Structures are given as structure tokens and as C-alpha cells.
């Protein structure tokens, strides 16, 4: 418990540092591009909106830095991240709210699926090392060597173009309006299958290899030999003694990859024109939409932090040694 409290304090501090950096960095950059963009939108942006952008980007020279910082926190806590230039006058928060669920659902689910599948296969291959199961290894090595965009493009070429069973792009049928109807949800799942498949294919190999190697290492530990010597059923030795310990290093890797769900999916969403955070960020960069970019960076930083926190909690649950050391 004390361990978790200490970690929580650590994370609060880190989050504060990240948010403060997010405040400071635009202030250190030369302000001209933002100023010129705001000038370009002059007349189309309301006076209050311009003011809030000035505050967000530190262009408000009438106020002291300290006052700006307080205003920035005030804006942040009331959920005001400014207005997007590219989708003017939509607030940045609304755009994030719209695109985040898509990314979380597609990339989140496929990352979890990939981890579970890869870990299970890795346990099995590692336990059966030296048998024909090792034949799976060259395949996984090959898969982990292919760049992701290549898998994505091939998947589109094969399953959407040459043999059109899946749509090549989008998150749902353009003819539908996003809502909670079965028709829309079905369409969203249908559109998600191909990108999810490519994500799983490209990342599962890493989990298999990592887990397999840990299984091989742990299998020669004395406590596994003891479990055999005790005449425990083989499944119990494999899962309770070997896999249970072998999975520990993979847990932190998994939590980190959860952190990259939000930020690290640019390529997938670009290849599949998927309406998630990555795609929107790509658009924002193209349109020099600074408020949107800043909002995304904040979300990405915070999600990495949350993932690290989950890793810590998972570790504390799975490994009794961390609980004590703290």
C-alpha cells in the first residue's frame, strides 16, 4: 500500500511536470507562426477565442508568466484546450473526444488481443522447446522484421482490392451517422477488422519471442525442477511455476505498449484513413493546427503516464517482491 502511494505521488509529480512543459514549450518557440495563423483567422474567430489562444500559446505579453501559467491551468481544468484552426470553430476538446474512442477501440483491443495471443503461444512454444514447435520461430522472426506500413498496404491490396471482402479505408460506412444503432456498430466492427488484423500480425511476433525466451530461461530455474520433482501435473508446472514467473518482464512491456496506443498509431490510421487520434494528428500537422497538436500531445503524454501507472499496479499484484521493497 505504501508502495502504491509513493508511486502515485511520483506520477502526480510527473503529470504536473508534463503539463508544465506543455505550457512552457510553445512559449519558447518563436511565436510567429501562431501569430500569423491567428492573424489569418482574424475576423472569423471571436475575440474571446483569440484571447484564449493567446493564453495557450503565451502570446499574451501584457500578463506576467506566472499569471499566464495560472490562466493556462484554469483553461485546462475547465476543459478548454482552445479552438482548432483546421476545423474552426470546433473546440480541440471536441475533436479529441470524437477521435479518441476510435483509437482506443481499434488499437486498444488489437494490442490486448495481440499480447494475450502472443503470450499464450510463447508459453507453449517455450515449454515445448527442442520439439517441432520451434518451427514457429522462423515465421515469427520473419513477421517481426516486416515494417508495419508494408503489412498494412499488402493487407489492403489483397483483402480490399484484389479480393474485396473488407473496406480499404474509413472507420464506418460513410452513409451512416455515428450513433448507437446495431447497424452503425456492425459497420464499425467490419471496418475495424482489417486494420486490427494487421496490428495483431505485426506485433504478435514480438510477444511470442519475448515470452518464449523467458519461458526457456525460467524453465531451468530450480523451483521449476522442484515442481516437476513433486509430481505436480504438467499443466500446473507450466502455468503456475514457469509461465507465472516468465510473464513478469513482459507485463511492463505490455503496459508501455498500452501507452503508445494513443500516440503510436499514426501509421495504421494513415494507411487505413481511420478516424482516430493518429489520423487527426497527421491532419493537424499538415494544416499547422497548433492548438490541436498541443491538445494531442497532452493526451499522448498523459496516456503514457497512465500506462506506466497500470504497469506498476500490475507488477505489484503479480510480484510479491515489489510490494515489500517499495
Amino acid at each position, binding site marked *: 500500500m505504501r508502495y502504491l502511494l509513493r508511486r502515485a505521488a511520483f506520477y502526480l509529480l510527473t503529470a504536473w511536470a508534463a503539463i508544465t512543459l506543455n505550457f512552457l514549450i510553445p512559449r519558447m518557440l518563436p511565436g510567429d507562426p501562431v501569430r500569423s495563423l491567428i492573424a489569418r483567422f482574424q475576423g472569423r474567430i471571436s475575440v474571446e477565442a483569440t484571447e484564449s489562444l493567446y493564453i495557450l500559446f503565451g502570446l499574451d505579453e501584457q500578463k506576467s508568466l506566472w499569471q499566464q501559467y495560472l490562466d493556462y491551468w484554469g483553461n485546462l481544468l475547465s476543459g478548454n484546450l482552445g479552438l482548432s484552426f483546421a476545423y474552426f470553430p470546433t473546440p480541440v476538446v471536441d475533436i479529441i473526444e470524437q477521435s479518441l474512442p476510435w483509437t482506443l477501440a481499434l488499437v486498444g483491443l488489437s494490442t490486448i488481443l495481440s499480447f494475450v495471443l502472443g503470450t499464450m503461444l510463447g508459453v507453449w512454444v517455450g515449454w515445448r522447446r527442442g520439439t517441432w514447435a520451434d518451427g514457429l520461430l522462423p515465421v515469427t522472426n520473419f513477421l517481426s522484421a516486416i515494417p508495419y506500413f508494408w503489412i498494412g498496404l499488402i493487407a489492403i491490396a489483397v483483402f480490399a482490392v484484389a479480393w474485396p471482402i473488407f473496406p480499404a479505408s474509413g472507420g464506418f460506412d460513410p452513409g451512416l451517422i455515428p450513433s448507437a444503432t446495431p447497424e452503425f456498430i456492425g459497420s464499425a466492427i467490419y471496418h475495424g477488422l482489417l486494420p486490427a488484423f494487421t496490428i495483431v500480425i505485426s506485433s504478435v511476433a514480438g510477444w511470442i519471442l519475448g515470452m518464449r525466451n523467458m519461458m526457456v530461461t525460467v524453465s531451468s530455474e*530450480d523451483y521449476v525442477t522442484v515442481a516437476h520433482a513433486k509430481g505436480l501435473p504438467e499443466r500446473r508446472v507450466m502455468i503456475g511455476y514457469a509461465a507465472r514467473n516468465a510473464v513478469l518482464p513482459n507485463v511492463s512491456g505490455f503496459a508501455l505498449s498500452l501507452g503508445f496506443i494513443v500516440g503510436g498509431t499514426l501509421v495504421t490510421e494513415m494507411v487505413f484513413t481511420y478516424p482516430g487520434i493518429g489520423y487527426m494528428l497527421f491532419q493537424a500537422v499538415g494544416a499547422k493546427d497548433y492548438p490541436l497538436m498541443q491538445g494531442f500531445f497532452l493526451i499522448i503524454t498523459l496516456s503514457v503516464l497512465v500506462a506506466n501507472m497500470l504497469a506498476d499496479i500490475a507488477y505489484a499484484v503479480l510480484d510479491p517482491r515489489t510490494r515489500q521493497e517499495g
Partner: protein
Amino acid sequence: MTGEPVLEIRNLSVEYGYDADAVRVLRDVNLTLHAGEVLGLAGESGCGKSTLAYAATRLLPPPGIITGGEVVFTSTRDDRRYDLLTATDDELRATRWEDTAIVFQGAMNSLNPVYRIGRQLTDAISAHRPEQSARQRRDRAAELLDMVGIPADRLRSYPHQLSGGMRQRVMIAMALALEPQLVIMDEPTTALDVVMQRQILQQLADLRTRLGFSVVFITHDVSLLIELADRIAVMYAGEIVEDATASQMYRTPRHPYTDGLLHSFPPLHGPRQELGGIPGAPPDLMSLPRGCTFAPRCRVALDRCRDERPALTATAFADREPHRRVACFQHEREAAAIPPSLTVM
């Protein structure tokens, strides 16, 4: 106190590695353990003691391969008799821990770090005695800990919360969970300080008197075995070179290597003395000498010793010491003086 044979190891050979790189670590080892007996297995580090323990229980980790021999277990409680090396996996699993339990050399790492002690004590019981209730198993686990002098509330501890000596005692308690007929102990006390070592050995002796199991006790400390064991087998470079009762071994070591071993350890009791030691180092198992493997280090080696390898046979005094065996051409030679401070207890 020698009864019927419990474990008969016959011509057991083990190699590490495959094909051209293989090292023969055990060469035709023959050893018999009788009911109720404490058999000591001694020898320098690397001579193959642990390998013998693993091979005899069919737990040899890769790349170890058993290349020949048999290990016959004869139950003293019913009339089961089987060769461990040819039994099927399921047959073997059913008899493990029931017939033979082991305390491994690395008792420090023998406990699963993520399970509580209680769970690790009870899972062997639930695997072999599924009819027992969780309550019975827990009581038994508490009783086992009590037997080795650890309070029962430690059942809820994780291994990292125990001291090294406690972990070692937990492993001994675990080995006794199903009241096995044979317990193999591979250096169970080496990592401990002398006080703790004494305490554990004393507990072990008490438990054995009470429960009556046979013991194979592996150590490189012969002086310890002379106190502890009924019979001692001395290993050198993967072979048994002498096999005799503890008092015979101590009074008249017939193999020059045994003699050297007896002179290289300080006695547990008595005054300090000059240690003799054995000059030289054990041979490289990859390229053993043609004759006796000990000849290069032997003070009394003859030309014959360098050309021919002596077999492990009965001594020239078979009428006086019928069960004694030695692998030396010169075992009739007058034995070297016994270190005066080594006293048989």
C-alpha cells in the same frame, strides 16, 4: 541397519551435450541404497554428485542425457518395483515425492517467488492426495513447518520474506510432506553458517529416527559424512571410486583419493590441524587419462595405474569387509595414518 535395497543404480551413464561435443559426466555408476540407511555421497566439486541425483530421479535438465543404465526403486511398504528410467511419464509423476523426495543443492532458489510458502507445501499434497480437504492440507503444512522449527504463521509468507536457513528448512519440510521412503539431499546445508548447519542436521537426524526414511546425503565434506552417514560412496571424475561403511572409510581408507579427502577437511570437533589436501586439480572430463583417472594426482601411482583403469570391485579382504568396494590396484597397501582428531560419533 541395512535392510532390503530401496534404490539400485546400475551402470548409470550420463552425458552433457550432443554428438561430438558430449561430455561423459557419469560413467557406469553402480550404487545401492538400503532401507533405513543414510548413504553419503562425497567428492570434489564437479565430480558429478548433483548429476547423479538428477539422473537417478530422471530430472536431468537439458543438455544432460542418460545414455545407459537403470535405476530400480523397490518399495518397502508395498510390493511395487519399477525402473525409473523406463517408466512412463504418468507413472513416474504418480510416484514422485511419494517414493522419492529431493532437496536440491540450490535450496535458495527452490521456492517459487510468487507463491506463498503454504501454497507450495500444500500443492504437492493436493496433487497426490486429492481426497484430502483444504483444511487437512493446511494443517499438515503447519505441522511440517513445526517439524523443522518454523512457526506456522510463516505459511502466509513469501519466499523472499524468509532467511536462507528458513528457506532451506522449508525445503526439508516440503520433502517430508508425503512421508517418502527415500529423501535425496544435495548439499542441504552448504550455504549455511555452522550453527545453523548443526541445527538442521540435528533436526534431520531426529526426523529420520521418527519417520524412518532412507537418505542419500550429498556433500563434499567427508568429515561431516563420517558423523552422519552409515555408508559412504566417494566419487571422482564421474565414477564411484570407493564404497564402504563410514567407520571403515574413516579407519582404513583404501583409495588414495579417499585418503586425501579425509585429510583435506577440518574436523567438526577437536583441535585445529594442518590440512593435507590433494595436490593438482580434477581431470578434464573431455580428455580423461587412459588409466586410472586419479593417477596424475596420486602419490602412490605405478606404471600400471597409468595404463589400465581399475574396476570397482570387492577388496582383497572380502571375508572381513564383504560389502566394501574400491577401484584401486593398490588398495591392500598399508593405509596412511588416520588424522587423530577425526572421531567417530
